[in-house]
């Protein structure tokens, strides 16, 4: 049962307080996009074993969506950060590199 710190209210939230939202940093494709781009946006997820950026909502808390960088195999959490960003912030990347020197951003 995961424990993730909500970057908005600072609560160390139990998994039961949270709802998951799948992969983070997806770029939305709308009308005018190709079938391939739309398919990738809607359905294709790499589901890596290891470092993963993902969406969580502090649903039974402050209600805010936030993002987490987490190892899907060991469940180590590298950090959580606000959802208002299109890519992981520098301090999160640094935290991952410190723990996973071999990791490279896809």
């Amino acid at each position, binding site marked *: *049962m*995961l*424990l993730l710190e909500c970057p908005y209210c600072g609560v160390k939230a*139990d*998994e039961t307080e949270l*709802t998951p*939202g799948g992969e983070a940093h997806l770029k*939305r*494709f*709308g*009308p*005018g*996009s190709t*079938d391939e781009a*739309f398919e990738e946006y*809607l359905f294709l997820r790499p589901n890596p074993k290891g470092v993963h950026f993902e*969406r969580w*909502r502090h*649903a039974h808390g402050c*209600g*805010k*969506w936030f993002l987490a960088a987490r*190892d899907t195999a*060991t*469940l*180590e*959490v590298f950090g959580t950060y606000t*959802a*208002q960003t299109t890519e992981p912030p520098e301090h999160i990347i640094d935290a991952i590199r410190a*723990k996973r020197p071999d990791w490279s951003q896809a």
Partner: protein
Amino acid sequence: MSTRLSTGGRLIDRSRQLTFTFNGKSFKGVEGDTLASALLANSQTIMGRSFKYHRPRGVMTSGAEEPNALMGLGKGAKFEPNQRATTTELFDGLTAESQNHWPSLDWDIGEVNAALSRFLPAGFYYKTFIHPRPFWKHVFEPVIRQSAGLGKVPKERDADRYEHFYAHVDVVIAGGGIAGLQSALEAGRAGARVLLCEQTPHFGGRAPVDGVSIDGKPAEDWVAATLSELEGMDNVHIRPRTMVAGVYDHGYVIAYERVADHTPEADAPRHRLWRIRTKQVISATGALERPLSFPGNDKPGVMLASAMRDYIVNWGVSAGDRTVVVTNNDDAYRTAIAIKQAGLDVPCIVDARPEANGALPDQARALGIEVKTGMGIAGVKGLRGVVAVKLCRQAGEGAVVEEVVCDAVAMSGGWSPVVHLWSHCGGKLNWDEAGAFFRPDHARPPTSHDGAGFVTCVGSSDGALYAAEVLPNTSAATRGMLGQIGKTAADAPVVQADAPDEAPLAPIWMMPQGAGPKKRAKMWLDFQNDVKVSDVQLAAREGYESVEHTKRYTTLGMATDQGKLSNINGLAILAGELNAAIPQVGTTTFRPPYTPISMGAIAGEARGDVFQPLRRTPMQDWHEANGAHWEPVGQWRRPYCFPRDGESHRQAVNREITATRNSLGLLDASTLGKIIVKGPDAGRFMDMLYTNMMSTLKPGKCRYGLMCSENGFLMDDGVVARLDEDTFLCHTTTGGTESIHAHMEDWLQCEWWDWKVYTANVTEQWAQVAVVGPNARKVLQKLGGDIDLSKDALPFMAWAEGKLGAFDARVFRISFSGELSFEVAVPASQGRALWEALLDAGAEFDATPYGTEALHVMRAEKGFIMIGDETDGTVIPQDLGLDWAISKKKDDFLGKRGQQRSHMTDPARWKLVGLETLDGSVLPDGSYAMAEGENANGQGNTQGRVTSTYYSPTLDKGIAMGLVLNGPDRMGEVLEFNTTGDRTVKARIVSPVFYDPEGEKQNV
């Protein structure tokens, strides 16, 4: 014959006699007994029967690992099956029954299974399923069904109560033996918040039984002193009868407290589930003794050596008068010594090792006990007990050297550290060659959110099996753990324990070493599931090389004891058969809970009325007082109908519809979702959320709107009212409110976070009443107020705000029934008063409260769709003829791109139509329109399905809506629909609008 000794028993109080029954017979025990010790004291050695062969079984252990002595406890609403006699504290009036026997424990017809045992080998179930089915159905299945199964299922509702506790601590310590106590002392002195859990009622573990001395004092004294120091610490919480059941991600721990099992009349919950967040877990869970695999090792009277010692020292109970001890290690000599010191006979100690010259063997010899080294047991004589053992050379094939008369056998195959809690979250193990057991690999601990280990094994759980090692190991490991959580260990010397040195064991996995097939078929590994050495060897020969596969094929370790006794022995046999080293074969996965926990504890308080919170509208009390028949809708309960005396639900629904259509109906619509969308960019946001154009809606007006997912599928619908230039009120379905609000927030926070919009779910702020029917305007006008309700001032799809009588009201002219209809919203606090005012004012119009079923029928009569009936997550608005509600002007909205996919734009889709049976009957719900031919699976093809179907009292016939292939192009065509029987029903495709197709009634 087992019996109570005249002296001894450190845990019992002989002055306090207790009465209990076993299989209907009355017995006496004493305070402090377990059910197992009390039964042994009464010479009741047979306590149950095995699962497959129904072999008579006695108690094998004295603790949580017990595979045999499983009981049904209590009666009626307090009955609980599969309880271990060894962990059941005796109380006055306890009732127990043995399991798995028919007709009686002593004479069991299922024993015939044992005679058939060569027909029931490993994988028997699988093999039988593969063979011709009739053989299974007529021969095996009836026999198995009669005789299989453990305890009976309770028949009554559980009369006990249960609760959950939540705790946040620095350290959870599992186990209150000397390691757990020492660890608690270290952590407590360092100022950590500690929760110390011990599964039994007693602290100290094995040390007091084994005669260990600590700090120069008897272990018992040290335990008492330590407990008293711990009890004085505010930061240490001590919990007996509490088992740490499981360790989960990020320091989540479940513990199971048996609060009142031993005091069933107490005013207390029976069990308590502790839900704990901890920084660190200390596993001080000790070790479990292993059986030895010799022929007949499952007979009543054969017991683990440590258990026999426990019964003598703790409860003053002997397992027999003449006990043979069989071992591969020094520890079992303690049992021989304890038996001898209790004044009973030990004809010999059978030691499989070539020599035994340590301090304990010497002490045994000094007491006059003969030690036979290099020997093993070739067989146990006796049917329902032990009368003699046959001895043989361990190195040979089992030729009998001599027979020794005895009535009990104490066996010890060495010890395995209890590493369950280490393993639950992925801690890895190493094979310890010298000790022949798996121990925690400190380099590969289970890791937490920070990537660091969060479980530490101490003492025997860490593989430090000898008393002298336990305390130094515990102190060092605990101090290391304290550093990890920023605490500093107190400056105290490490306490020393003293016990005789022990020589290493010899790994003996089969006794005798060269036993042939007949003997191997009598060596039990898993006692509860009847898995023998021969079964595991057969599985290996049949290609089951993975331990996980072998486990499932043979059911080794799959019983309620989860392989606590059989795991390592079975693994070693498998490894031997595969010619592989034990660590190469690996071990099965340890999963929580450590021992079974009750379903009641898992449910906790969440049952009956408090199973989940109930949401109530302001009018709920009135509905209750007026006989509403309820329908659950999410966490709400809505009136389905209001039956009057003698009315069926069907009759009530029909009456409500007729009264509404003819005069006046009232619906409590308060549960309808109400979400405010507000801000300078609200219009822009609404245009993305809804398929139609919402930004052009004028304040004071309403518009019906559809919401789709990015996939394009319809997910919710409802009427939007524009409150002012930058404020919209979105009505959603009752069940969809929370998810739609979450959906809005998702897009606002994660995609369009720079848009100036705010949302709020105000559903419960408002009470809402639908005032419906030809007299709807009249009744509202009777209430008075300052809102002009005339057709011109408040036309269809407009809304107004003001006073309605004394109420602060918003009146929406919207209709879900096709009648003249006003939905009146007032602050929730005024809801009940409004409802009653409408009933009073409406009395002259026969104002009739109606429920959800009338609502559903009336909307179906009008051809209005219902989310969840006409939609199922695969339906797009275009399928439902709702193209008019999809904007062509907007560049983008959620779902637009999805709806452009080829499958969505395919003209050949199932689309909404009305369906009318030729005979006027009501089509069965969910039935399919049949088509020619069959699909690839040999199933009949279909061309449509029914989505809503009702009897319409207005039209006095069955009406239905459905999705049919190219439906709207096939008006008038007759289709055949299936039923659950052979019968089919013919129905004609018609317009889905059955009632008032011109919409004249709602627009007056």
